[in-house]
């Protein structure tokens, strides 16, 4: 079964993150908080697309749903 820790590793491999948190224990549904400098200048759709891209093919079969909140380091520090 896919663990939140695995999803976290997959995201971290494809995207440089300042902060990354993944939760979820049913193997299919996960929740993530992703903070990355790479999000600067990107809109929210593009930011989520970058996380999906890091997960690649895994989004098609292994992961049913990934609920996420994305932040730039700046917007994260103001949160």
């Amino acid at each position: 079964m896919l663990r939140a820790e695995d999803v976290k590793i997959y995201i971290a491999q494809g995207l440089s993150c300042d902060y990354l948190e993944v939760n979820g224990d049913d193997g299919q549904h996960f929740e993530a908080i992703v903070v990355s400098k790479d999000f600067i200048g990107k809109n929210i759709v593009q930011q989520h697309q970058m996380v999906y891209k890091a997960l690649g093919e895994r989004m098609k079969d292994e992961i049913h749903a990934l609920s996420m909140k994305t932040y730039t380091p700046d917007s994260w520090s103001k949160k």
Partner: protein
Amino acid sequence: MDVQETIKNQVTANPVVLYMKGSPKFPQCGFSGMAVQILQACGVKDLVSVDVLADPAIRDGIKHYANWPTIPQLYIKGEFVGGADIMRDLYEKGDLQKMLAEIGV
């Protein structure tokens, strides 16, 4: 007709289109159900929805159309707006209501 063309026609022929699992009355997934509830809370009546479970070609095609791997997907005036998370964020900020009001929905 090519499936990408079919999708393009669907999203441009209607001001608001939701690609979802199931129907607004009987959503087959919690995220699709939440998307419907948000649009209803915004006052959208006669929501145009496409049940991706009823058409495997659309289900696969829509993921490529907006380079977005998950369902639901919301389109306003032919533009991809986002999935369930983004819809909720926009709704909580009041932006989704504004976007819909601008097009008179």
